[in-house]
Structure formats: C-alpha cells, structure tokens
C-alpha cells in the first residue's frame, strides 16, 4: 500500500544508494524544507477558504463563489492580489524590526511543524520531548507580535501588542497544564509515543473526566494563544482597527495572516494528537475485528480529519461569540481556567496512580 511512511523510506533508501550519507542528509533536509513550505502555502490557501466558507454559511451567505469552480480558487486570487500590492513601511517606524517581525512570526510557526506526527511513522523529527518543545516554541510567536507592535510606531499597534503579550503569557499556563494531563496519563513526552499509547482508545475516552476537562481547557487556551476570536484582542477590529498589524500591507501582512492560520493548524494538530489519538485510527479496547476494519482508513486521513474537525470548532467559536474585554480575558484565565486546570492535574495524578483510566 502506498503510504507516507513508505514514500519517505523509499526516498531515504534511494538517496543513500546514489550519494554519501552526508549528502543524503543534506538532500533530505532540503526536501523537508521545500515540502514544509509547500504545506504552508497549501494550508494557508485551504484554511482561508475554509474559514470564509464556514463564516458564510453561518451568516446565511454563500461565501466565495466567483473565482474558479465553487469559488475554490478565491484564496489563490487573494494571494495574487497581496503579492502585487505595495509593501509600505511607514515613516518613523523602526525599519529593521518592522520588516523582521512578520518573518519571526512565520519562523516560529514553521518550527512547530517539526515534532508533529502526520501519519503513522511519518514525522520530521521524532524528538523525545516533543510536548516540551511545542510549549516552548509556541510562546515564541508573541515576540513577532510584540516586535510588530513596537516597530510600527502606531499607538493602536502598540496597544494590540501589549494586549497580546499579556494574553499569551497567561494562557500558556493553562494550555501547558492541560497538556501535562495527557503526559501524566501516557507517561511519555514524545508526540509519537503519545499517539502509540492510544492504540486501545483515544485519551479523551480512556481518560474520561479529567481528560475531557483538559480538552475543553486546552481548546479555550489555544484559541486565546492563537489570537482568534473571541480572544482576538490583539487585533480587535472594532477597538484597535487592526491591532498589531495595522501598518502592514501587501505580502508582509499576508505573512502574519498565514502565520495565524498555521498556528491554528498546529495547535489543532497537537490537540488531535494528545486527545484524539493523532494518526491513530478509532480503536476500542481489544475488539480486534473492529480495530482492523478501522485500520483500512489511512492514518494520514485520520490525522487530517481530526485536525480539521478541531479547526472547524475554533472557527465555529469565532463566528458565534462576541469578543471579551481585556480584564475579563485575564479574569477568565486566572480565576477560572487556571484553578480548574490545577485541580484537574491533581485529579489526573490520582487517576493515573490508581490506574482508574481504561
């Protein structure tokens, strides 16, 4: 059967046959780099289109329907427009930081791709502390935002960046704690190992109450961490016009836009990996027959299916809820999410020690 892991190992073997191991490694890295960038572009296009469609259907509209069949090429046309637009740098801005910021945001998002297991046996870097790596790198994205806000020399941008800083720092906590829940249950830090530990059922089912609480908190926290509505205070269109990217135009704006969507994809992928079994098909305990039937669906489809389901959930939030105020946002984190997740981590420890999970 043609699978991602088969292709990967075929390419690896062929490269080792035709050149020395060093060059094989270099070529593999180039291939990975190109395919990550390719995946970025494709994901950006797909997610933008998906968001516009979801929004439109919830708002009793049709959504994009003019460019290409069913409007499928709409985001391609948008990209073209952004590419040919002038990228302005306002006078009075810190030009170096201003131009650097979108790339920082982009690179931080790109780095997060490394430990994610896209399919069975198909991973860029099987790092054994994957979860820690993800938590560490994902907080880097705030640097890009802060940089953009400061360098723009615009008060709206500055306020947006400051809000974003406060927000990401606080929501990191509960996101981290809810990730820890699964680490406690599975006893592993590597993302692939966590997936493998869900062979007899996903953690959201196996870990019952604490896992479900952790999942809900995780979804709320990552929505805030990626600056998506109802936590989009950094942009807050009606308050700060566009927040930290008020002054950006053309491709530099597009990079921020893309980074946002990639971040959404990545946090959803992590959520799918931790709680919904990643690429692991839907298995129930030791029902061999059922599990075997489920295995016929390729693992990559399972992974992307779950991830896109979570992305849809985040989009659903965005197109239903109003935005919170900055003090309410922090109240929610410090008065509700953090105590609940702390209580939850105690609960899950007890559950894990007593082996009360399935």
């Amino acid at each position, binding site marked *: 059967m043609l699978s991602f892991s088969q292709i990967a190992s075929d390419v690896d073997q062929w490269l080792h046959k035709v050149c020395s191991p060093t060059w094989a490694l270099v070529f593999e890295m180039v291939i990975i780099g190109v395919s990550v960038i390719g995946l970025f572009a494709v994901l950006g296009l797909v997610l933008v289109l998906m968001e516009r469609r979801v929004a439109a259907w919830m708002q009793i509209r049709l959504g994009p329907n003019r460019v290409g069949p069913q409007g499928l090429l709409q985001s391609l046309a948008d990209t073209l427009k952004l590419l040919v637009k002038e990228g302005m740098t306002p006078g009075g801005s810190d030009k170096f930081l201003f131009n650097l910021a979108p790339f920082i945001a982009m690179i931080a998002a790109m780095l997060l791709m490394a430990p994610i297991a896209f399919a069975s046996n198909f991973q860029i870097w099987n790092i054994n502390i994957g979860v820690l790596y993800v938590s560490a790198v994902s907080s880097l994205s705030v640097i890009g935002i802060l940089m953009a806000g400061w360098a723009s020399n615009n008060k709206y941008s500055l306020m947006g960046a400051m809000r974003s800083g406060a927000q990401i720092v606080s929501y990191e906590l509960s996101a981290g704690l809810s990730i820890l829940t699964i680490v406690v249950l599975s006893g592993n830090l590597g993302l692939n190992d966590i997936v493998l530990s869900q062979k007899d059922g996903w953690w959201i089912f196996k870990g019952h109450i604490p896992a479900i609480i952790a999942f809900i908190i995780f979804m709320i926290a990552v929505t805030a961490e990626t600056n998506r509505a*109802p936590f989009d205070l950094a942009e807050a269109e009606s308050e700060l016009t566009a927040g930290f990217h008020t002054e950006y135009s053309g491709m530099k704006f597009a990079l921020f836009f893309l980074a946002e969507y990639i971040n959404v994809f990545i946090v959803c992928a992590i959520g799918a990996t931790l709680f919904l079994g990643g690429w692991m098909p839907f298995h129930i305990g030791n029902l061999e027959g059922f599990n075997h039937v489920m295995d016929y669906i390729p693992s990559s489809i399972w992974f992307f299916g779950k991830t896109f389901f979570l992305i849809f959930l985040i989009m659903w939030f965005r197109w239903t809820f*109003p935005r*919170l105020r900055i003090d309410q946002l922090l109240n929610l984190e410090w008065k509700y999410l953090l105590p609940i997740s702390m209580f939850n981590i105690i609960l899950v420890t007890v559950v894990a020690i007593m082996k009360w999970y399935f």
Partner: protein
Amino acid sequence: MFEEIGTTAEGDLQINVGPQHPATHGVLHLVLTLNGETIKKVEPHLGYIHRSIEKMCESLTYRQFSYVTSRMDYLSSHINNNACALIVEKGLQVDVPERAKVIRVIIDELTRIASHELWWGAMAMDLGAFTPFFHAFRERETINEIMEETCGARLTMNYIVPGGLMMDIHPNFQKKVKSFIQLFRSKFDEYNELVTGNIIFQNRMKGVGVLSPEDAISYGCTGPAARGSGVKCDIRKLYPYEIYDKVQFDEVLETGCDSFARYMVRLKEMLESIKIIEQLIDNIPEGEFQAKTKAVLKLPKGEFYQRVETARGELGVYIVSEGGTTPYRIKYRSPGFSNLSALDHMARGSKLGDLIAMMGTLDLVIPDIDR
C-alpha cells in the same frame, strides 16, 4: 487642521478614534486620553459630515425642505419627514385624512424596527460577533422591500409630505407587512439565543456606561438611551402626535442604567412597534391619502415647534416663519447630538473596549449629530 496628538503633559496617551474607524460607523472623531487601557477623557470632534442643513432649509420652500431631513438621521428618515410634515400642517392648520395618519404611523414603526435591526447587528459587530449582523439584515431587508414597493426607495424615501403622503400604499402593502410580522416573530428568539443570553455579551454590557436618571435628563439624553435609565421620555406617550394616543403600546423602561438596560430597551421596543403595527394594519381606513393644500405653502408669521420620537430619541423641529414661502430660521434638535454629549461622562474610568459598547448602545448616527 489636525494638531499633533501624542501624549498629554501628565504623560497620558492620546489616541484618535476616528474619523475613519470601524467602530464609529461614520466620520465621528473622538480624541481619547488613556491611562493604559483606562479612559480618562473623551473629546468628540464633530463636523466631518456637517452640511449645514439648517442653513440649506432657509432657502427651500415648505414643500421642499422635508426631503433634506431624510439625510439627517438616515435610519429613521420617515420619522424625520413626519416631523417636518407635522410642523407645516400645524402652521397651516391642515387636517390630514385619517388614512394618511394611520399609514404614517405604520411606516414610522416599520422604520423604527428597521433602525433597531441595524443597530442590533452593528452593535454585536462592534463587540466582535460578526454573525448577528447578517441575521439582522435578513429581517431588515424584508422591511426595505416593503418600503421599496410603497415608497419607491430603500433609505431616503421622501414619502411623508406636508398634507399627507406622496402616494397611496401599494396593493401588496398589507399582505407584505403581515408576512413580515410573522417572520419577525419567528426569528426574534434567535436574537436572544445569539446575543442577549450569551455570557460574554452580558459581561461586556452589564455595569458598563452607567448613566444615572438625573444625568440622563441633565445631558438631554432621550430615546432608549434615557429609557434605559428609567426616565420616561417617549414623545409618543407624553405629547402624542398622529394617532399614537389611540393605539395600545407600552413605553419600555429599564432601571439598569447601564449598557445592557439600553440594549434591552431597544430589543423590547421592536416588539412594541410590532404590536402597534398589528393593531393598525387591518384597520387602515378608506379615503383620501392627502389633504387638499395650495400649490405654494406659506406658513403664517410665528414660531412652531414639533417634537417626535425617532428611533434614537426626541427630534425637535423649530421653525421661525416670517410669513414667506421659506422658513426664516429652522433648527433641528437632533437626539444624537445630546446623547453624544453624555459619552464623556459615561466613559470616564472604563476600559477602551467599553467605549465601543457604550457607543453601540447610544446608537450614534453621525449625520444626525452633525446635521
């Protein structure tokens, strides 16, 4: 024209909200003095859409001047026209046929619903929820279609003219209004589901922008802005015009004094308007739709004042006539202008995000403020 705005002498941040800003819904320009996120002062700068309608009207005849008022508060253009028609009729002592009066009230109330629909959607959008806007526009579109069929336009209709109406209602009018009432009643629960009950929304609105009844009167606030503070100020009840004294409806009063109270007033007012329309739609009397008037109208020498209740509050039209074909001086007391003056008082000490909620519940229409 624009002075450099940076920081004040005390080191507070000053920012411009507007004249081009997504939340001001027009060209309102507010200069905010901020301490962090907390507002210390709001200073409105007006005039970006000032057309000096008062001066314009001095050179327009009594038949012509009312069409301009559609451009003041464009969301309640019928009610503005009604005020102008009423004041000319008062001056000429013309008796308007009963049919025209009933149709005027129905049209006025439809306008009020349409205005509140747009406010509801736009206010939810200000708070970051984009979906309600489209849901509100679905119902508003139905009203616009009714208006288009009967009045021939969708926003600035000039349908109510001195002496009665421009033309008779369309044969489909009653049928369409009834189907609109049905649609509105079936969709109204969605408004509560989507926005009113939402915990985030309630937290954003409750206790925000508190305006005590005394302040509301002192600042001249009218309409839902004052009724949210429990001040009785509905001109339809207090100084009835047309046939408002003959229909049954309640003046919606809330005692919360905050943004949420003002929000609830407007939401309930839509239902009251529906109630008024339901009473009248089957009872439109037969007869003329226009009184016999002279070709050239001349108001007698004197002063005339007419107060009406628009969707935003009390609109006053003050005409000083010298006996000619044009007014000597005309003054529009617009509700938005007075309501805006309370914004600084309400906003002090609250967060930047609250200002948006307050501006939303005051329902500012900028051409109405600037005139």
